[in-house]
């Protein structure tokens, strides 16, 4: 099976501190759903910003779908992210002044590549996704600021998945949800991802979610670094 993510000999440190990440080798196969667990401050967010192409490692290679991110310029990495990666934050995912549908459409706004992959018009796809995620037509037209946290996260999921990106990165998207909604959210997220053959990298500190995923990885298993932050946050 082709690899979606492959990290080799990677080290990263923020200016003036000891390495936050030190990953010898780690890979994720295409279409897999991975739960990556780590305590807060263990370098999860740093790893995600490297994968998203926001930051670049001091050493090592990050390959996403056989593309070496370190060979790309900052602008090219932005474009790569727009074309191939869907991203969900812990919370505050949406632009509060746009409606739910408009927020979903942002997902394809910066990517011709993802626009082309749509089988119908972008707006139709967006409403379709939102319906499947349980937002009524009226809710879809509401400004995002008026939606509940749970609804906002579902809108964020629709935005991350519209246009079928190859990789979905979810950074603790369920931490603000209660247990029922959390389970429901993860099921829907994985369903939609599977339909698009999207590789899922789900980051959390909550080990109870592991049964939903093919693979469960501890960040401490793949990264040797012991960041200072962990001590600070402990």
């Amino acid at each position, binding site marked *: 099976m082709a690899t979606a993510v492959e990290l080799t000999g990677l080290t990263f440190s923020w200016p003036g501190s000891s390495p936050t990440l030190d990953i010898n080798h780690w890979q994720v196969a295409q279409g897999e759903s991975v739960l990556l667990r780590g305590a807060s401050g263990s370098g999860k967010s740093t790893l995600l910003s490297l994968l998203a192409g926001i930051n670049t490692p001091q050493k090592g290679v990050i390959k996403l779908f056989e593309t070496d991110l370190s060979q790309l310029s900052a602008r090219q990495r932005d474009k790569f992210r727009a074309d191939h990666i869907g991203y969900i934050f812990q919370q505050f995912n*949406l632009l509060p002044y746009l409606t739910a549908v408009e927020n979903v459409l942002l*997902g394809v706004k910066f990517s011709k590549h993802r626009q082309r992959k749509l089988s119908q018009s972008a707006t139709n796809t967006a409403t379709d996704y939102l319906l499947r995620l349980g937002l009524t037509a009226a809710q879809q037209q509401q400004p995002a600021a008026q939606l509940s946290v749970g609804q906002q996260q579902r809108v964020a999921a629709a935005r991350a998945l519209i246009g079928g990106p190859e990789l979905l990165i979810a*950074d603790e998207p369920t931490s603000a949800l209660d247990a029922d909604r959390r389970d429901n959210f993860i099921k829907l997220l994985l369903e939609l991802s599977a339909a698009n053959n999207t590789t899922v990298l789900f980051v959390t500190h909550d080990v109870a979610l592991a049964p939903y995923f093919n693979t469960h990885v501890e960040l401490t298993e793949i990264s040797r670094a012991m960041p200072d932050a962990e001590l600070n946050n402990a």
Partner: protein
Amino acid sequence: MLKLALKSLNNRRVSVLLTVIAIAVSVALLLAVERVKQQVQQNFANTVSGTDLIIGPRSSQTQLLLASVFHIGSMTNTMSWDSYEQISSRSEIDWSVPISLGDSVQGLPVVATNEQYFQHYRYADKQSLELTHGNWFDASKQAVLGAEASEQLGLAIGDQLTIAHGSGGLSFSEHEQHPINVVGVLARTGTPVDQAVFVDLTTIDQVHGLTEDDSHGHDHAHNHPTESISAALLGLKVKPLALRLQREINTYEQEPLTALMPGLTLQQLWKTLNIFEQALNGISVLVVLIGLIGMLTILLASLRERRREMAVLRAVGAGPGTIFGLLVTEALVVTIVATSTGLTLLYGLQWALMDVIHSRSGILFSLYPPTVAEWWRMGLVVCAGFLLSLVPAWRAYRQSLSDGLTVKV
């Protein structure tokens, strides 16, 4: 991008609206200074458009010009009728109009002159005066009213008026025993002519009690209608002679006189007033700057709250350049909307105040499309808005680079 900027601005519409208003008012002020200057200069130039030389008693050129044609200020001296006759009979002179000033009707200036005024006075594009009602006076104790004077005094043909000595609104020496008949009303000219009351030269002397006897009038060619006048307007047969004639009159031996070329004297007047214009311009530029800095402030202040927004945009693939562009677009939208609002405001004010200004000052503020100078000013405002927007845009750029996707709110 524009759509996103508009929606984002709409989300902060109260502070944005206030900023737009502040900039709009300042732009209107900036344009008004330019426009008032243009219109006043145009108006003054229109008023003297047909006159080649103005002569009068020795005084400053500006004083003579302002008093004789614009009825601003007063003449302290007079020139003798003899000198006037000698000069006006010279061969270079095409026509001449004697003018005697110093009286008023309820604050409106009385211009004592003769029929030459009606025949030869020209305004704007060399237009001659026209009467809407009645005739030009042909005897003493008759008056012709300017359009505005007729309206303000509420007088029409057949009505009577009395002349007060001095130019103030209230005078203790009203010449009530000398009622004067209104015989004509002039068409509107948009010059100080509109405010004036015109009477024959002899009328003034009569109301002053200088020539009690009315019976031997001025119909004798050699008879003096009056002993002295305030000024005279001259038209020349050959315009280039004006300079030479001016020099000769300024060195006139019988009597100290002043001669001026109205166009040139106006130029000098504008030059002296230039400093005030510059000061007004400077102030309005500062006001615009304050408005724009207000915009800068709300953009900068919003950046902190909008870090999330920037991170979301980065997550969906927007580069820091896009964030930069978004901020610049927002500022440009605000500046352009504000500038066009300011222009609309200017036209609205001009339209609303046109009548008031005309009746108070005689200056007709005509509505015309923005001039090149005004487009320049508006263009510079937009440019300044753009340049200032680079500050928040740059900060947003740096911020989105350092924040990336991980904002701790």
